[in-house]
């Protein structure tokens, strides 16, 4: 069925301890270009990752040969499309440590997944006087839906603070998570600080008080093995586009019993079992949450992204990024005064490195680096409350993925040195 468009340099059997980054780079067409006259160095994968040829080809394949709407046609293409879509669902279930496909809901992204829980589960289960707990290091996507839910239900939003080193400060956790707590929502890994949070520990405390635990896995699922059952989460949300997959595809994993008690969030086609003008019954999970025609080609191509990551092996991906992060910490230390946010111990963090220069504003850093072909993120990273806690208006952030190597970091560091000369500081 598939012509040989999936050229890749890595065999299915190998689980390299060291990633062959030169071969991986060759799999990503976008990386083979000059930007502003310099070879592109892409260090913004925490915002969105680039796509390997086989993911791009999977989208083309879908539209060239197999596209039809899913779950409703009785013809061959409808069947192929449906099979491919559902195949990705099963694949996602295996990818996050082996769970049931029915527990995998496709959404448009992490933000959409979190909104689904906040509206559908939240409106049903959070009442006046209840409490919702989040942390100081959350991305806006894991703040605003809970803020809104608290407003709607007259509940109280409580915040777990962070320490000066950028870890969750759990010293007063028993005052924060109480018997009134209904939801504890936290990120698995911070997109700004890089901190990997002790989700299992927090989940145990939350569960003792009867609260559910919602984990924003947007920054963890792409970079490390996630075993959903070990994590202790009740809901786990992540996005395909940060893990080599297409944009517009997200995942919400939820425990079966929780999904089953949750009413639909968006309503329309596909999510119903029977519609009469006087009574509507809902479809089973997960279809109940997938109203309308979803991003079919995106979901289908996400399967190729998962294949790619599995061939590399998530432990190898994680190991590679830790090595890069260690190397980056060493080299960035060559710039006096440069301040790196978050844990300094590489074992406790991922490969998103936020930093500030004592004189040069992050946006000027971003523009200067771009002039040298280096793509980083600059700004508040949709984490304004955290910026306030850190006493910063913005930071520059370099983030790594499987296609980055030490030379990329060298280019970053040399460009930062040039930048300081340029701005005369």
């Amino acid at each position, binding site marked *: 069925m598939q012509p040989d468009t999936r050229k890749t340099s890595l065999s299915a059997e190998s689980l390299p301890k060291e990633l062959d980054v030169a071969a991986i780079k060759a799999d990503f067409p976008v990386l083979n270009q000059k930007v*502003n*006259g*310099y070879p592109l160095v892409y260090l913004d994968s925490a915002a969105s990752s680039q796509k390997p040829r086989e993911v791009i080809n999977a989208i083309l394949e879908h539209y060239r040969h197999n596209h039809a709407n899913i779950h409703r046609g009785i013809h061959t293409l409808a069947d192929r499309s449906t099979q491919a879509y559902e195949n990705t669902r099963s694949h996602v279930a295996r990818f996050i440590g082996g769970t049931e496909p029915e527990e995998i809901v496709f959404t448009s992204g992490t933000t959409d997944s979190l909104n689904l829980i906040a509206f559908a589960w939240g409106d049903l289960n959070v009442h006046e006087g209840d409490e919702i707990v989040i942390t100081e290091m959350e991305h806006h996507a894991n703040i605003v839906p809970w803020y809104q839910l608290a407003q709607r239900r007259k509940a109280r939003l409580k915040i777990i603070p962070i320490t000066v080193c950028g870890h969750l400060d759990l010293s007063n956790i028993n005052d924060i998570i109480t018997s009134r707590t209904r939801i504890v929502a936290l990120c698995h890994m911070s997109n700004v600080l890089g901190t990997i949070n002790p989700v299992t520990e927090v989940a145990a405390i939350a569960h003792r008080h009867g609260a559910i635990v919602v984990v924003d896995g947007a920054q963890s699922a792409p970079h490390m093995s996630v075993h959903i059952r070990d994590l202790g989460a009740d809901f786990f949300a992540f996005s395909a586009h940060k893990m080599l997959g297409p944009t517009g595809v997200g995942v919400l994993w939820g425990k079966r019993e929780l999904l089953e008690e949750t009413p639909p969030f968006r309503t329309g086609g596909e999510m119903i079992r029977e519609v009469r003008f006087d009574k509507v019954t809902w479809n089973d999970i997960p279809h109940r949450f997938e109203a309308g025609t979803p991003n079919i080609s995106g979901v289908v191509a996400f399967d190729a992204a998962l294949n790619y990551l599995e061939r590399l092996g998530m432990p190898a991906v994680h190991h590679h990024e830790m090595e890069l992060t260690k190397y980056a910490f060493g080299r960035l230390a060559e710039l006096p005064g440069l301040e790196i946010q978050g844990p300094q111990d590489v074992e406790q963090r991922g490969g998103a490195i936020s930093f500030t220069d004592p004189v*040069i*504003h*992050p*946006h*000027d850093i971003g*523009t*200067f680096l771009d*002039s040298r072909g280096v793509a980083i993120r*600059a*700004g*508040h990273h949709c984490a*304004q409350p955290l*910026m306030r806690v850190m006493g*910063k*208006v*913005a930071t520059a952030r370099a983030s790594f993925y499987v296609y980055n190597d030490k030379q990329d970091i060298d280019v970053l560091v040399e460009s930062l040195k040039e930048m300081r000369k*340029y*701005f*005369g500081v």
Partner: protein
Amino acid sequence: MSSRLDDMYREVILDHYRSPRGKKPLQKANVLSDGINPACGDQIALSAQIENGVLKDVHVDCRGCAISVASGSMLAEAVKGRPFDEVRKLAETVRKMLRGESDLQLPEEFEDIESLKGVRNFPVRVKCALLAWVTLVEGLDRYAAGKTTEKAVVSTEQE
């Protein structure tokens, strides 16, 4: 490319950035306006003193990038001592210049401001350069509406 970069970060811009003008706090301000650029977190606190339709003095405190700080500094220098109406016109001209809607030559006395033109080639940075100007205009609007005790808060997202 570097020339494009140099076109934005002209020496005069870097000079305003390194030593911003108008940072001296005012004793008697009757225009208070805060501006933010939510996309990057740039902040500006602007206060001015108007007397008989003239901007006697202006204080600009920017926390932001080189472009926003330099633009605020240039504003402070340019508007001081000028009639209210002239300042409004100038702000409008600067806005048009930055948005590429006009190639109006600014009078020679505003040549520093003219140097912000290079920002046009970096669309994502236009808001940085505009921040001080929209903040000032919002403050003047408030003043004109008689709301002198209320602090105006303006965001470049409204631009």
